[in-house]
């Protein structure tokens, strides 16, 4: 477990005094019940879904209205208190990890769908509305919200905006950025602001582009206007088995080369397939080295035409077994395993760490072989799911936090995967964000001048660095330290020293 270094005993008195001061100032602008300060109340906010990293926040506030958000921000700004925005806490990179001296701004109460405009194909929702709830509300109009991160039943649209979340269908339908028109919210000093508009573009710089995916570091989101798209009349999925990873990777390239953009194109390796089959019983081929799920959606005629072409391409690419979903129930069963990859991993290992890098598709087989070697090097197992269509890899490293040294080896394993991804021409995070988890890897992907430019962008929005400080952009010092550690890879100095 990692905690802030400031948590050391000598500062406890100072922290309690600060907590009392900030709570008193906030109590002037917020209802008392909206301020949590007792340890038993703030404990649930100590981490997001990256549970390995925990920090006890100074306070947690739960405003219920935009004026309350503005007022809380003004108080924090005046007193120099860091503000960490939080949605459902499903983030996997620690973007909502609290700050020891900061306030967690929980936006859970912003959970109302304000408007669905079927004519304009838009929905105006508060930031705390769940991703899946938008599609449910739009369903009576034959519309839905396309981005579908695996956590969509729990994660909120505000969190999706912060992370620029993707999902299994983003190859065809795009990421959060491509499906959001407008973000309303507040600057660090509490000033109201709107990025984007109901039109397709805005005058001036496209600030929406940079706010989406900024991990709560540039502004606080309270309301989002999303695009809705017509629900395809029909969808069918092919499950294809391959005897080796190489031909599965080549099959992905052949589908794209054939001029086909599938609605989803996912790959699972043998170990992952075994884990999910035991979990969901979806009749996966347990003999295959890799399974591809390839989906077509659209009108019935369109799907029929596309499925035929997909089958041809996959057969030619050496698929050892092909099964096309006959009905909706079977299609959903094909997907059930993929969607449950994370909980299934939880069922075969006490702990797992989910990685999230993107590589050019053609390097897939090379990457998976490298991961196999890392399993031996770090003495840990790894199962793999892959958004093959857009090169986004999710290796799940299995470990047991109770076993001495496994967490440390898991972190090294993860860092190795990320650095290999950069070396293969990819990126350290495809959709989960940097948060605190990938700060070190940012040192590898970006040069000092690039990181300095990120910081300058941060200052253009938030000159005092009050919003989610310490996330995404590693300090020069940290990168220098990390560079030194690399000399002794596998033998990290002071393994118990808190690093986040």
């Amino acid at each position, binding site marked *: 477990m990692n905690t802030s270094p400031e948590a050391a005993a000598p500062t406890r008195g100072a922290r309690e005094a600060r907590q009392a001061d900030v709570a008193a100032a906030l109590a002037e602008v917020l209802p008392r019940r909206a301020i949590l300060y007792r340890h038993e109340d703030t404990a649930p906010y100590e981490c997001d879904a990256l549970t390995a990293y925990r920090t006890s926040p100074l306070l947690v506030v739960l405003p219920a209205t935009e004026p309350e958000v503005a007022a809380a921000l003004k108080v924090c700004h005046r007193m120099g208190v860091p503000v960490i925005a939080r949605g459902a806490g499903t983030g996997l990179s620690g973007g909502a990890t609290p700050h020891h001296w900061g306030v967690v701004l929980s936006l859970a109460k912003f959970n109302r769908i304000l408007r669905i405009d079927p*004519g*304009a194909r838009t929905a105006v929702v508060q930031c705390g509305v769940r991703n899946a709830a938008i599609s449910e509300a739009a369903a009576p*109009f*034959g519309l839905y919200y396309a981005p579908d991160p695996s956590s969509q039943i729990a994660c909120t649209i505000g969190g999706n905006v912060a*992370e*620029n979340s993707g999902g299994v269908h983003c190859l065809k339908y795009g990421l959060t*950025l*491509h499906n959001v028109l407008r973000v309303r919210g507040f*600057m660090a000093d509490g000033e109201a602001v709107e990025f984007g*508009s*109901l*039109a*397709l*573009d*805005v005058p*001036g*710089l*496209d*600030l929406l*582009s*940079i706010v*989406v*995916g900024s991990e709560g570091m*540039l502004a606080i989101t309270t309301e989002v206007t999303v695009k809705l798209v*017509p629900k*395809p*009349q029909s969808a069918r999925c092919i499950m294809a088995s391959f005897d080796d990873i190489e031909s599965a990777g080549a099959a992905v390239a052949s589908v*794209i*080369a054939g*001029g*086909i*953009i599938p609605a989803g194109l996912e790959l699972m390796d043998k170990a992952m397939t075994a884990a999910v089959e035991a979990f969901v019983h979806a009749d996966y081929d347990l003999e295959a080295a890799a399974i591809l799920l390839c989906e077509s959606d*659209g*009108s019935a*005629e*369109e799907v029929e035409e596309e499925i035929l072409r997909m089958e041809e391409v996959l057969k030619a690419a050496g698929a050892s077994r092909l099964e096309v979903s006959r009905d909706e129930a079977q299609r959903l069963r094909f997907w059930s395993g993929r969607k449950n990859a994370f909980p299934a991993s939880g069922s075969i290992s006490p702990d797992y760490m989910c990685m999230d890098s*993107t*590589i*050019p598709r*053609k390097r897939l087989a090379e990457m998976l072989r490298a991961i196999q070697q890392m399993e031996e090097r770090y003495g840990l197992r790894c199962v793999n799911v892959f958004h093959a269509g*857009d*090169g986004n890899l999710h290796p799940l490293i299995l470990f047991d936090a109770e076993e001495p040294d496994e967490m440390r080896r898991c972190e090294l394993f993860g860092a190795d995967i990320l650095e290999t991804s950069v070396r293969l*021409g*990819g*990126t*350290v*995070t495809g959709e*989960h*964000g*940097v948060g605190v988890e990938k700060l070190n890897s940012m040192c590898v*992907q970006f040069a000092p*001048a*690039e990181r300095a*430019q*990120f910081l*300058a*962008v*941060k200052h*253009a929005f938030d000159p005092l660095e009050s919003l989610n400080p310490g996330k995404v*952009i590693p300090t020069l010092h940290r990168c220098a330290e990390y560079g030194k550690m690399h000399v002794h890879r596998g033998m990290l100095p002071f393994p118990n020293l808190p690093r986040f």
Partner: protein
Amino acid sequence: MDPRDPVLARLIDQVDRARAQRQHLDIRGGGTKTFYGGLPAGEPLEIKALEGISSYEPTELVVTARAGTQLTELEAVLYAHGQCLPFEPPRFSAGGTVGGMTAAGLSGPARASAGSVRDHVLGVTLLNGRGEVLTFGGQVAKNVAGYDVSRLLVGSLGILGVICEVSLKVLPMNRATATLCFDWNESRALEQVNLWASQPLPIHASAWHDGRLHVRLSGAIAAVDAACGKLGGTPITADAATAWWLSLRDQTQDFFALGSSDLARGECLWRLSLPSTAPPVELPGRQIIEWNGAQRWWRTGAEPRLVRAAASRAGGHATLIRGADKSGGVFTPLPGALLRIHHGLKQAFDPACIFNPGRLYAEL
């Protein structure tokens, strides 16, 4: 990109000198969009020599090209592999470049269905005002490492730095296409295109002008056939359709041509960007409505404040594209909070304020 590349090194040198001498630079590609935005000012910084496709792998759906690469060259290479730039960037005349396309951020008829230039930019290498060569984003579609600076640069009109290289997501060309015409008035056309857009139909582009709506369908063969049957209307031949949509994309139709006498009379070309369902805009003059109602070109002699007010009432904004007098500004003025962020970003990328002064806003 390697800063030691001789062409890039010369650009860095010019930027360093301009910064030292407090001189303004006018970043120039093919010079085909000098009419767009505020008047260019400063010593020309030519990026044309920074040319060539750096990498293209059709199965990765990504192309990386240096900023001076001609758009026509890039599109020809993609075409040879059955792929395209889905956002159909306008080519106002020969010689337009990839850098200019990115800096202007203008998209063509397919924008409402296929997305914008911004949506397809995956990475940019930038030369900033400190003379540093920085790369943001990359060559993969899913990438959330750091702030999305590459997309911020799309449409920035060069005020943040010199775009040196761009990676773009490309897509296979659609297998089938068909164009249908409907003789409808403006209200009827607006209503119908929005209704269609909320159904799973392969509508790729729409344009209404002078009582006639053109609708282009594009997608799988079966889908286009089925939609033709469902929509009705009068089909036009493939050749005529190709020519018509090209003339709209590249703005070679008479509607867009403003001669010196038109300009002298005070006639202007405006672009109104509105919510697609906004009701008809009341202005004197003529218009072309694209993007299912979200983009409305107006040729009008109305006073700028009236045009801006009309756009604002409709929930959007207006840009003066062509006109004799740009002294009142080209783009809709920004509210205070956004203007402060613009100033902050200018400071962050170009602290000595050397690049493209006044091209986006007079004060930037």
